[in-house]
């Protein structure tokens, strides 16, 4: 399997706190990888390294064969066109309508006509089931709706790599299920057109094992387990924390 993202001995500290401690692993292309771990263990920091929102203190992050930090500011900005990212808070532009939010990346990076932009925005909003909310502003939407608009905006340019930061945190079980379904379907739908690599950050074990092709478990700044969901179910990993973290889930399901 060709890796899309490679972490090579990456270390990141904030003050005296080491958040990522010499991490090395690979995320394969065209798959949905979930980075799992308890809250506050540096999962978001890991995700921010992939898209270059943070720079590693040591080591390298190679994305699609390129070290982001070997590029100039302008090249790095250009390079980010390969990405779509859904933030934990959705991070919609609160001064713009839903339509303008989803149209934003299209307007920025293509020279499509207003008509074409509109049809593209509608198509993406239909994918997330929110075509009726097109004229609303973000403050009029619920948390789950905002995340769905955020997802529509992230996939607006049909990116090669999709990053999700805690997509189901703070949502009710029904909305969690609906967002999971959406992530899964987006992966399949976009995959039909080109190869999409998805990376999901989550502490939600239940959701993870439903959608993931590959699971990476982050604990105390290090990767303690990495494999297919079946590997976890079959008890391949012996680290005590793996068992502890997954116990609740497997007791229920196996």
């Amino acid at each position, binding site marked *: 399997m060709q890796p899309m993202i490679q972490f090579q001995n990456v270390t990141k500290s904030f003050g005296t706190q080491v958040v990522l401690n010499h991490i090395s692993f690979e995320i394969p292309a065209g798959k949905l990888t979930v980075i799992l771990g308890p809250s506050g263990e540096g999962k978001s920091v890991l995700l*921010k390294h992939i*898209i*270059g*929102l943070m720079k590693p203190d040591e080591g390298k992050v190679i994305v699609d064969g390129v070290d982001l930090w070997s590029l100039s*500011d*302008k090249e790095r*900005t*250009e*390079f*980010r*066109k390969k*990405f*779509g*990212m859904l*933030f*934990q*808070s959705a*991070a*919609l*532009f*609160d001064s713009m309508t839903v339509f303008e939010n989803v149209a*934003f*990346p299209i307007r*920025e*990076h293509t020279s499509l006509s207003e008509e074409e932009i509109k049809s593209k925005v509608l198509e993406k909003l239909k994918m997330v089931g929110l075509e009726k909310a097109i004229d609303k502003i973000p403050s009029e939407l619920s948390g789950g709706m905002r995340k769905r608009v955020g997802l529509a*905006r992230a996939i607006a340019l049909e990116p090669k790599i999709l*990053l999700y930061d805690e997509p189901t945190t703070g949502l009710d079980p029904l909305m969690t299920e609906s967002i999971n379904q959406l992530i899964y379907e987006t992966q399949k739908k976009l995959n039909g057109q080109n190869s999409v690599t998805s990376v999901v950050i989550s502490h939600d074990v239940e959701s993870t094992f439903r959608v993931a092709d590959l699971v990476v478990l982050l604990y105390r700044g290090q990767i303690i387990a990495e494999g297919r969901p079946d590997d976890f179910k079959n008890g391949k990993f012996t680290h005590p924390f793996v068992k502890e973290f997954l116990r609740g889930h497997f007791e229920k399901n196996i």
Partner: protein
Amino acid sequence: MFTSNVPSTNSPKTSRDFGKIILSFIHELGEFLFFTREFFHWLFQRPYRSSLIVQQMEFIGVRSLPIILLTGGFTGMVFGLQTGYAFRLFNAGSFVGSTVGLALTREIAPVFTALMVVARCGSAMAASIGTMKVTEQVDALTTMAVSPIHYLVVPRVVASVLMMPLLTGVFIGVGTFGAYIVATGLLNIDPNAFMQKLTYYVDFDDVFGGMIKAAVFGFFLSIISCERGYKTTKGAEGVGLSTTQAVVISSVSILIVDYFLTSWILEFFSGDM
């Protein structure tokens, strides 16, 4: 023994605190210089965001007009009144026009306009960019392959540099008119003498020098306010802190920059005076 210990434990602590303040000042200054360098890096990059620049010009220029008209008018009136009363004592009432004109064009108009724009627009820049920062909207821009400096900072600074001289021009016009009304209407100074001395002593260099000052102030107030907003952390409290800092640092910087600009402008533009 206890009392004798107090100064010896306090003094190293005080010097350490002082050292910390100096270090943090140098750190902040360094960050500001990096931010300014990044601004110049993105200033001439395509696409030129003309619609955003026009939008900011409207916010900074057109919507600041009422406050500039008010402050300009009353500043000129007060100045006319004060100088008029004083000059009448020496029977030099006709010099009110030239005195007010020179003071307004060279100093008062650019500085007061800048302080008004800081209060109205600098605070808004820091608050809006700061809010976008703490709600991850700035990060969202970055992830969508758009530089936040290019999208948020460049239009604000460019609009500020373009609009400040115009607002200053309005301030000069309204202020002079205010002084004229007070001097001729209230203090019975001869209108012709007022105008004659005004046009004789105030020349193009004075107005041009004032405009240059205004543009430089526009640059500093907007880049400082944007930088404060951009460096916001810690949620709503952080946004409040950034806004306060934007206003305080911009205002103080304007007065400091004013001193150096004045000495430079006097050297190069009015060397013969």
